C-alpha cells in the first residue's frame, strides 16, 4: 500500500470545496441552533408547568432520535408532507439546527439554573428592569459558566456535519467518499479527510479544556 500524493493534489479543489461546505454548515447550524436553543431555554424556565411542556417535549425528541434518522426524515419525508421540496443542503441545515437547538437549550438552561438565586434577588432589589437584569446580571454569568460546554458541543456538531454525506450534501466526508469511489484511492482520501477533521476539531477541544480549567480555578 503506497500513498499517492499526486491524486490528492489533483482533486484539491473538490476537497477544499468540501471543507468550505463543512465550515458553512457548521456556522449556519450553530446560528440557528443558538436561536432555537434560546427559545427552548426560555420555554423551559417558565414557572407554569403547562408552558414548560412544549420545550420539554422538543428537547426530549431531538435529543433521543438519532441524528441520522432525523436527517433522512427531513430530506425524504418532510417534502412529501409539506408538498414542497428543499435542497439537500437546506434539509441538512434544518436537521442539524433542530438537534443543536435541543442540546444548546439544555446547556443554556444549566447555566441559568446554576446561578446563585441571590444574583436575581439582588438585581430585583436594585430595581433593575427586565432588560438590564438579563443583559447585565444573568447572561454574563450564565454564559461564563457554560462556555466550555458550548465549545465542547461545537466539536460534536462539527463531527455531526459529516452525517450529511448520507443525503449527498457535498461536505468533506461526502467528497472523500465520492472521490474514493471514482479513483479507488480510498486510503489517500479517507486518511487526508480524517486528518483534516482532526486539525479542525483538536484546537477547539483544546480551547474547551482550557476554558474548563480556568473556570475551575476562578
Amino acid at each position, binding site marked *: *500500500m503506497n500513498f499517492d500524493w499526486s491524486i490528492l493534489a489533483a482533486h484539491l479543489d473538490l476537497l477544499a470545496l468540501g471543507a468550505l461546505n463543512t465550515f458553512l454548515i457548521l456556522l449556519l447550524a450553530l446560528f440557528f441552533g443558538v436561536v432555537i436553543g434560546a427559545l427552548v431555554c426560555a420555554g423551559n424556565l417558565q414557572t407554569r408547568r403547562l408552558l414548560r411542556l412544549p420545550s420539554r417535549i422538543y428537547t426530549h*425528541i431531538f435529543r*433521543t*432520535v*438519532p*441524528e*441520522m*434518522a*432525523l436527517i*433522512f*426524515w427531513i430530506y*425524504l*419525508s418532510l417534502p*412529501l*408532507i*409539506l*408538498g414542497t421540496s428543499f435542497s439537500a443542503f437546506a434539509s441538512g441545515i434544518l436537521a442539524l439546527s433542530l438537534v443543536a437547538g435541543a442540546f444548546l437549550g439544555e446547556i443554556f438552561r444549566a447555566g441559568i439554573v446554576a446561578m446563585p438565586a441571590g444574583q436575581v434577588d439582588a438585581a430585583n432589589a436594585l430595581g433593575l428592569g427586565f432588560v438590564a437584569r438579563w443583559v447585565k446580571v444573568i447572561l454574563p454569568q450564565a454564559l461564563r459558566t457554560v462556555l466550555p460546554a458550548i465549545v465542547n458541543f461545537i*466539536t460534536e456538531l*462539527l*463531527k*455531526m*456535519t*459529516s*452525517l450529511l*454525506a*448520507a443525503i449527498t450534501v457535498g461536505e468533506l*466526508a461526502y467528497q*472523500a*467518499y465520492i472521490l*474514493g469511489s471514482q479513483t479507488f484511492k*480510498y*486510503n489517500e482520501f*479517507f*486518511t487526508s*479527510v*480524517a486528518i483534516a*477533521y*482532526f486539525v479542525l*476539531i*483538536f484546537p477547539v*477541544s483544546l480551547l474547551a479544556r482550557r476554558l474548563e480549567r480556568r473556570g475551575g480555578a476562578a
Partner: protein
Amino acid sequence: MNWDWQFTFEVVVPRLLAVVPVTIQATVLSFLLALVLGLALMLLRISPLRVISIPAGEIIEFIRGTPLLVQLFFLFFLLPEIGIVLPPLTTGIVGLGIYNAALCAEVYRAGILNVPAGQWEAAKALNLSACRTYRDIIIPQSLPPIVPALGNYFIGIFKETPLLSFLAVAELMHASKLIGSEYYRFTEAVTVAGVFFLVMSLAAAALVRFAEGRIRGRILH
C-alpha cells in the same frame, strides 16, 4: 400527502421489526467492545512510562477528534486492502467499539483520577499489591461517577447504529430506506423508523437508569 395505514402495518412495521435484533446486537456488542478496549486504552494512558502514555493519549485524542462516519469508511474500505475481509456488521461493530472505547477511556481515567491521592498512599503504606490496590481500593471508589457516564455512552452507541447503514448493514435505517425506495413511500418508512428509534431510546434510557440504581446500591452497601 396521504398516509397509508394499511401499508404501514402490513409492510413497514413487520419488516422493521424483523431487523430490530440487528440494531440491538450491534449496540450491545459495540458497547462491550468499547468497555474492554476502553479499559486497555486507559491503562496505557495512565502508564508511568511516558513512551507509552503520550502515544496512547494522542491516539485517544485522534479517535475523539474525527467523525465516526469517516472512521467507519476507513475500516470498511481499507481493511480489505490489507487483507482483512470482515462482514459489514462486524466492521461496523469494530468501528463503533473503537470510537466509543476512546470516549470510555477518558471516563475511566476521570473516575480513577477522582480517587483521592491519600487512598493510593494508604494502599502503598499497607503494602497491598497493585492488583489488590486496584480491585479493593481504587476501582470500587471510582465506579460511582463512571457508571452513569457509561450508561450515556450506551444510549449514544444506540443512536450511532444508523451510521452502519452506510456499510449496507441491514439495520433499521437501512431497512427503512430500502422499503422507501422499493414502494416509493418514504414518508411511512422513515417516520416509522424514527418512532422505533425514539421508543427504543426511551426504553434504553429507562434500562440504564434501572441498572444505575442497582449498581449504586451495591457499591454503597
